[in-house]
Each structure stands twice: as C-alpha cells, then as structure tokens.
C-alpha cells in the first residue's frame, strides 16, 4: 500500500509529467517520419532521449520540491525508514521508464509495419540499454535532488555530465595518455553513468568472449548489465544516506 502510493505519487507530483511522456512519443514519431527513410538506427535515438533526457525531465525536483516547500517535514515524520521514501520514488521513475520504453518500442514497430521505414535491428537490446541508463541517471539525479534540496537537480546533472566529458576531452588533448588522464578515465568509466558502455552493449561492439550468441558475448553483456545496476544502486545508497542524515527545518518562529 505504502509502496504503491509512493510510486504513484512520483507520477502525479507534477502536472506536466504526462505531457513529457506524450510529447516524447510525438518526438519519436517525428524522428521516424523525417529522418529514417534510409534506415539508420532508431535505437540510438531512443537511447539518448529515453535513457538520458527522459530521466532528467521526470526527476526534476523529485525531492527538491518537497524540501523547498517544507512538505518533506510531514513525510519524514511518518513511521517508516526514510530510505523507503527514496527507493519507492526511484522505483516509480523506473516503472514509468519501463512503460514508456515499451510503448516507444510498440510505436516504432507499429510505424515500421505500416510504413516500412527505418531499421529496427536490436531494438529490444537498445530499449534494455535505455532502461539501464535511465536507472543510473534517475538515481544520480534523485540523489542530487536530496543533496541540493532544490528543483534544479536535473540541470545540475546535465551540466556535470557535459563538464565531465569536456574535461575528459581537454585532458586527453593536452596531456595525452598519462597517469592523471588514466585515473580520470577510470573514474569516468566506472563511476560515471555508463553511456559508452551501454552504447557498445546495445550496438553489439563487444567481440566474442566465452559464451557467444550471434555477434554478442553473453558474459560481457551480463557484466554490462550488472555494472549498470550496481552503479544505480551505489548512487541510491548515497542518496538514502544523505536523506536519512539530513535535517529538515523551516525555522520561522
């Protein structure tokens, strides 16, 4: 009951959320209509919009709104572990992503069947990669929302990701391949939302390893999935710790 209400609340907390979903579907249709006569990957488009930009749009102010308005003061006086508040809201986002991506997949397949345009190769894998990326980005954005206590957590994440790749590019260009850039690259590889990893995972760029089905290495693909889920879990643990220890007061006496 509590889980259901908290997950439901993540959808109803802002009236614009359903507009985000609907306009996103319109965007997929438009992209299909305008840019896929020759059949490049539709999956890559869904990966960027559904995996990265959708969680930013849906998680904006997910805790910041409550902290800013003082509503959190009532929520955290209820008799349950504060981590549940975080977890069920994140699951609410993740569930929205599942429904959204499945509908997006149905839309693409439907359009493909009707118009015979574009390429739907490995669409399922791209949708899975999008969902995994969605989870990591949503968890990081939610944690940032708990930390900053304002509604600009998504914008902050966007700036952080852009700044991270900019710094990485600069370092590679200026310093070349040395210990410092190596350490930074390792941090980005293992601590950052796994954009490159999941892109390669969905594109089937990993060569055969031990168990291979077609062009995919099952062992490496499983490692990609586990890494993404663990990263989302790590971001979540950080958010839960901050939420549990944070003080909430609007002292105006």
């Amino acid at each position, binding site marked *: 009951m509590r889980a259901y209400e908290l997950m439901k609340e993540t959808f109803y907390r802002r009236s614009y959320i359903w507009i985000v979903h609907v306009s996103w579907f319109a965007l997929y249709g438009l992209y299909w209509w305008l840019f896929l006569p020759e059949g490049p990957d539709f999956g890559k488009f869904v990966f960027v919009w559904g995996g990265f930009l959708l969680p930013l749009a849906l998680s904006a102010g997910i805790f910041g709104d409550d902290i800013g308005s*003082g509503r959190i003061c009532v929520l955290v*006086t209820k*008799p349950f572990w504060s981590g549940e508040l975080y977890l069920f809201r994140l699951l609410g986002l993740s569930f929205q992503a599942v429904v959204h991506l499945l509908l997006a997949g149905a839309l693409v397949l439907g359009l493909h069947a009707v118009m015979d345009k574009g390429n739907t190769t490995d669409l399922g894998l791209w949708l899975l990669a999008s969902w995994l990326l969605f989870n990591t980005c949503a968890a990081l954005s939610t944690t940032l929302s708990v930390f900053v206590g304002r509604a600009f957590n998504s914008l902050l994440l966007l700036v952080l990701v852009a700044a991270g790749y900019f710094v990485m590019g600069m370092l590679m260009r200026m310093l070349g391949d040395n210990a410092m850039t190596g350490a930074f690259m390792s941090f980005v590889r293992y601590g950052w939302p796994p954009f490159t990893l999941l892109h390669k995972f969905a594109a089937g760029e990993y060569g055969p390893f031990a168990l291979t089905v077609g062009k995919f290495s099952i062992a490496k693909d499983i490692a990609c999935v586990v890494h993404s889920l663990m990263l989302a879990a790590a971001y979540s643990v950080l958010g839960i710790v901050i939420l549990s220890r944070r003080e909430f007061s609007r*002292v105006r006496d």
Partner: protein
Amino acid sequence: MSEYGLMGSELILRGRKTVLVQAEVEIAGRETAQGAVVESQGLTKVFRRLLAGRDKAVCALQDVSLSVRAGQIVGLIGPNGAGKSTLLNLIAGLIVPTEGHVTVCGYRARSVAARRHLGFMPEHPVFPGVYTARAVLRYHGALLGLPAPAIATQIDRAVQQLQMQEFIDRTASDFSQGMKQRLALAIAMMGEPQLLLLDEPSNGLDPVGIVQLRDLLKRLRDAGAAVVISSHRLGELEKLTSDYLFMHRGRIVSIAEQVAASQAGQLRIELVADGVALAERLLPASKVLSATDKELMIAVADPEEVPDLVRDLAQGGARIMSVLLQRENIEDLFLRLCNERT
C-alpha cells in the same frame, strides 16, 4: 501523581484554573518520567552554516528541559526567534539536537518507533500535485501503514470532525488557507497519535473553524492525547489550554511569578452617589487609586479580596451599580514580558 515533576503555580486567570508549566523540570534521580509523552533534558540546538566560522553559529535553543504528559495541551509562546519552531522540530525529529536528548513515548525522537506516536502539522501545509483532499488523506494513511478499511474509516471521521464535506473531493493544492489548515490537521490526526505537534493551527481559519478546532483539540485531550501548540494567537491559546511555556532567545523562561503578580488588578466600582465620602470612611487611603461620587478605582492585590471589599462597601451604605475587576490577561503579560526582555 506529578511523578514527572511539573512544577507550577496554580492561580485564577479569567476565572479559570491555570497552571504555568515551569521550564526546568526536575527529573534528576529518575530515568524517565512516568506518564510523560514528551520528555527532554538539556536540549540545545546550534545552527551552523557550512564553511562559516563559529561566530556565525546561531544558538536557537539552549538547555531546555521539559515534560508533557498524556491529556495535556501545552502552548508554546514567545516572540519571533524565540525557538518555538526549533523545539517543535526537535520533538518531531526533523532536526538533531546539538546537546541533550528528547524522547516521544519513551523512544528517541527521530526513531521510527517515536514517529508511530506523533502527528505533525506544519505552519504552511503543502499537498502533492493534483491530489484531492481525500487522495491526500489516503496517501498519508498508506504512509502510516494503515489497512484500506481503517484509512476509509479515519477519513470519514476526519471529514465529520473538521467539517470537510464540501471540499473533500476537490484538488487540495487549490484550497484556501483555512481549508489547507483543516486538511493538515486531519493528516496529523490520522493514525490516532498520542502526541500532536501543531504549528499555528488556527492560521486562516474562520471564527467557526476556530471554535471547532478548539472543541476538537479539547476532545483529543480528554481522550488522552498530548498536544503541543506553537502559536502567536494568545487569545485563542488561552481559551484552549491552561499550560504555557514562554520562550525567549532559545530558553524557556519561568513566568510563574510574573503571572502571579499580574493577578493584581484594579477594581472599578460604579455607585449611585457619595463615592468620595464612602472611600474616606471605609477604605484605606493606600488602596484608593481614584474616587469620585459616581466611581471608585481600588487597587487589589488578590482577586479573592474582591468579595470582602464589595460586602464592606455595601454594608457601609454604598449603593453599587456595577463592579469590574480589570486585570492583565496573558496577552498583556506576554507583551510586558517581551518589552522587559528587549
């Protein structure tokens, strides 16, 4: 019975029995106060800003010890910045004390066990997005872990008690301040908590709503709930509770002596005639503040003197038309105390 050591002065204020809760509750030598719903000892809260020096720290609460028992309504009064909301937030477990401790029903504040026993109503309630009042109550009932039938029963009861029939199925974010206050109180009451923490509960309520709120809180008190109210509406508070904590600059100030002193007043007596002669003949000069043939103003140190004074005057031949004892009420006292301390 006062095991928890409430020290107070019983006195008559506006004809009602009033007990002033004194701050420094003596609980030394005992582990917990029996019957106490809220208990704190040496509670201190210092707010520090990140990366700011020690000199920028604000001590919002300093060495506060108190005890609130079941079936008691306690009013927190004091000027802005006195520490009332900080004290409420500490009891609610929203913030952590810098020193000291506070318990709710014997459990450390901020623990899940303590939260099971408290309902909190903030000063400015906010409700989620597009929820109706009924959906908001259902949501909070679910957060409390109540089963669906119990939630439905409690919603129906809250609707009756708080007169919410007209707007229970309307979107809560569009409510007027008064409607929001009723809904916030209904949320705080869900789960029938043993402790209600209310921050300015009568904000925005119309006169009928204020009377209903007062009656409801009295019923809850009679049912055994403890209620702590922070409010600037002293007139309302006075009608609701007889127990006050006067806070000033983060401390609870003992006001028992001042209130006792405030019981002194002026007796205004309207007469048909001969006021000056009667005053000279029947009253000590030191007591007569002013005298005309039609009116006498007499100083009284204790309200219990009044019946004897009136009887003496009547027996001495005074034809009395009206008698009025003018005294300092809690509002006047509050203003005087604030002025004295600033």
